[in-house]
């Protein structure tokens, strides 16, 4: 940053005594952010719960329109990316630059794979007119209450997908910094915080998968 900081550790903000305090402040910050994220998604989970209790039959009829295989593959992709994100933190803590770069790249790659599969799923839904509200295409033998289900489906998976894209942006930035050699065992906060965010994105999917794709 500014030249007066040159003699200090390069990424230690001047208002922190040491890296430990800077890390702790950042860590608490990210947990509070994750709390707001839980609250953010909980509105959609309320909509889901309410509509499912009121109209369980709509969810049963909707189940056949969702591809369990694609959902399951995406679940595996996200779980694997959670492993590589946690492994990236380990590498950063131990100062293993090469391992950090590999794990960040794998995490980013999984995020891309997730979005590609999501894109394929969305395309199929668009093709068949399985869309929310007024965009829903009515067909014989297809209850039009499905349009509300697909409203919930697109709102939940869409908001989750936006979070995946957000994570991708962060991982590209971290990868660039990791290659430059910014991270050391005393300064790896950004890796740790991004991994926490990524685990939350995975956690939300862990609930979305059975709620949307595994309705019997």
């Amino acid at each position, binding site marked *: 940053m500014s030249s007066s900081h040159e003699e200090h550790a390069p990424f230690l903000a001047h208002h922190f005594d040491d890296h430990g305090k800077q890390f702790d402040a950042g860590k608490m910050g990210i947990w509070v952010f994750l709390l707001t994220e839980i609250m953010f998604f909980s509105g959609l989970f309320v909509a889901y719960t309410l509509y499912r209790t009121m109209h369980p039959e709509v969810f049963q009829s909707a189940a056949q329109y969702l591809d369990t295989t694609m959902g399951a593959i995406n679940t595996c992709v996200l779980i694997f990316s959670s492993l590589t994100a946690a492994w990236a933190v380990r590498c950063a803590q131990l100062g293993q630059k090469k391992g950090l770069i590999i794990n960040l790249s794998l995490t980013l790659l999984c995020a891309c794979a997730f979005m590609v599969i999501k894109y394929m799923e969305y395309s199929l839904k668009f093709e068949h007119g399985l869309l929310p509200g007024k965009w829903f295409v009515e067909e014989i033998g297809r209850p039009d209450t499905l349009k509300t289900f697909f409203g919930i489906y697109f709102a939940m998976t869409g908001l989750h997908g936006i979070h995946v894209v957000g994570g991708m942006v962060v991982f590209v930035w971290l990868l660039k910094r990791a290659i430059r050699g910014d991270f050391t065992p005393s300064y790896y906060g950004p890796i740790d915080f991004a991994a926490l965010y990524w685990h939350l994105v995975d956690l939300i999917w862990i609930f979305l*998968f059975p709620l949307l794709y595994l309705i019997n």
Partner: protein
Amino acid sequence: MSSDTKSHDAEAHHPHVLPIPVLLGVWGALMALTVLTVAVSKLDLGAADLAVAMAIALVKATLVALIFMHLLWDKGFHSLIVVGGVLAMGLFIGATLFDRAHYNESIEQLERDHPSVRRHPKAIGHPETDGHVEDSGEASDH
């Protein structure tokens, strides 16, 4: 000041480093639970379906939060934040369901009185929900 910073660096906080077998073990458990939840969804457990699926998801979520997210070794305050969030979410969902159950009677009454505001104005393939039977002129009330 420079040497001061250095000494702080040297004695920087001692983070908890996850051993590789633990990382792989959690990943294996999460994969096994995913296979389990898909397998269970193929069985017909009736009303228990959702409860079982949610229980498995909860175990997976706990594994991720406690180990991958380091909550097990982290400050208790961070766990408190998570627990607080989950409780608030439970309150949010619980209060909404309670409210909905409380007003269910009046909603159904409203639907009987005003067929035009039915939740199912049109359900293709389900003619019985069209509401012709109850359509006896009360709709002109409004």
